[in-house]
């Protein structure tokens, strides 16, 4: 593992311990270190700012409520990531339908963002929402967060072999969705 990542994981573990020892600010620092990434995962999964905000808050709430059961031999990042993905999938299940197409992609663009980035966000966001939640999850984890097959497997609780087949199929479906939208 890369030294920088290992050092970052050690910092997480230290913060978890300090929080469990009663230092409230350590919990806040831990949240700050991972908030942006978890929020963006939820945003990509759900395509909706309000839901992403709720899911992120729920995931961190659940994680800290169960922090006493956290095993430091595993990465804290993987732990909170799994909770965020699961909370996103649960929200999607509650919606019952795979939301797609017209007007359901609701991510406001920053005024400072380049036009090409805005266009890419819109294209990818809408195409992703046409996919099944499981397909969407592997694509988000692999392409937005550069997780390895092993890390995706851990986060979703499925074998690496399933991750690969799901990812490869999801890519084909996304490519097709992008082509269809362009047509």
């Amino acid at each position: 593992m890369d030294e920088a990542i290992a050092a970052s994981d050690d910092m997480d573990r230290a913060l978890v311990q300090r929080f469990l020892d009663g230092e409230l600010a350590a919990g806040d620092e831990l949240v700050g270190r991972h908030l942006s990434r978890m929020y963006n995962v939820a945003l990509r999964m759900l395509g909706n700012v309000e839901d992403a905000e709720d899911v992120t808050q729920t995931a961190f709430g659940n994680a800290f409520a169960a922090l006493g059961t956290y095993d430091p031999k595993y990465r804290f990042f993987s732990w909170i990531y799994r909770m965020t993905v699961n909370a996103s999938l649960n929200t999607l299940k509650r919606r019952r339908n795979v939301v797609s197409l017209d007007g359901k992609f609701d991510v406001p663009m920053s005024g400072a963002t380049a036009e090409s980035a805005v266009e890419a966000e819109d294209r990818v966001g809408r195409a992703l929402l046409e996919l099944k939640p499981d397909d969407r999850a592997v694509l988000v984890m692999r392409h937005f967060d550069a997780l390895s097959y092993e890390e995706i497997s851990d986060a979703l609780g499925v074998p690496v072999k399933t991750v690969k087949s799901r990812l490869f199929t999801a890519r084909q479906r996304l490519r097709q969705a992008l082509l269809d939208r362009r047509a």
Partner: protein
Amino acid sequence: MLTPHQQDLLHRELDGETTPEESIEARNLMAAQPEALEFMTSLRDLDALFHSVPRHASPPGLRQRIYGDISSKPGRSRRPGRAGGSAQSVTSWISQHWDGVRNLTEELMQTKKVLVGAAAAIAVIAVIGHFVVGYPPSIRDAGTIGAGTIGASDSITGVQQAGRYQGRTMTEADVTLSNPEVQALFQDDKILKLVQSDVFRTVMRDESFRALQSNAAYQALQSSADYKALQSNAEFKALQSNAEFKALQSNADFKALQSNADFKALQSNAAFKALQSNADFKALQSNAEYQALQSNAAYQALQSNAAYQALQTNAAWQALQSNAAYQTLAASQTFRALARDQAASEAFLTQAMRAQQ
């Protein structure tokens, strides 16, 4: 028609999940079969499209609400309008906003004009802290002492002022020498010398540098062992200062190739031909670290990033890349966080100039 095995191989090559032998097999496949190259190109385009999507800042107040959740009973501080919850106890308020209040007092202390106000604020907080929750608030007592309530938090100026430090915008107050991580950076003579240099100050004030700090692919690349090794590689350094290579970097055909792998088009490019006969470039091509980097998805995405392309032609940026102190600085999470923000960058540079070597 590609077989399922071949498709599987190319997917894994894109993801960096192949063994060295498999990677060679994938490259041979692409060289031998145009269909394989086309397939891989489409996968890379897809990956590049994802990487061009900007990362969003978390909404203002979200961190504060999560902090409220973890420092008191779960669900106590939901987002207004969605899950309700308005009144908070004094102890909960103090616990949730303690860091914000501390930041606020630090800022107040920096301004002599409001020193009296700061002293008063500290005194009030100290009294509340002493009589109501004790000092400092801890996880064990948070939310356990009922001590009356205050009305809607929006009506309290202190909450509003403290709350802004929970947001994304950083100010000089956040980059003070009292910040242990910034202090640690400045205690490194090489880093301090670097951040006080004209070349560094020019780059840090560059808009594309800040844009790059928010780029997920760039962040991934910065922590890549391959990338770090490459930056220290003598041959790569030689290449970076090679005039023909620089010309190639700003060549439109070469840029197009970086994103679509249209190798045939490149073959007819004069700058590329010149590069092919360049001894440094030849050495680099056979460099294992360089080869690993070329197949790194994050690196490929970064190559098509407009901000990155702009920086590549910036002379000051080129000088920085091979600087060991900069490499250490760039690996600092604190530096990367503040470098994304113009105000924080300016504050950092100001603090650096004040620091003593």
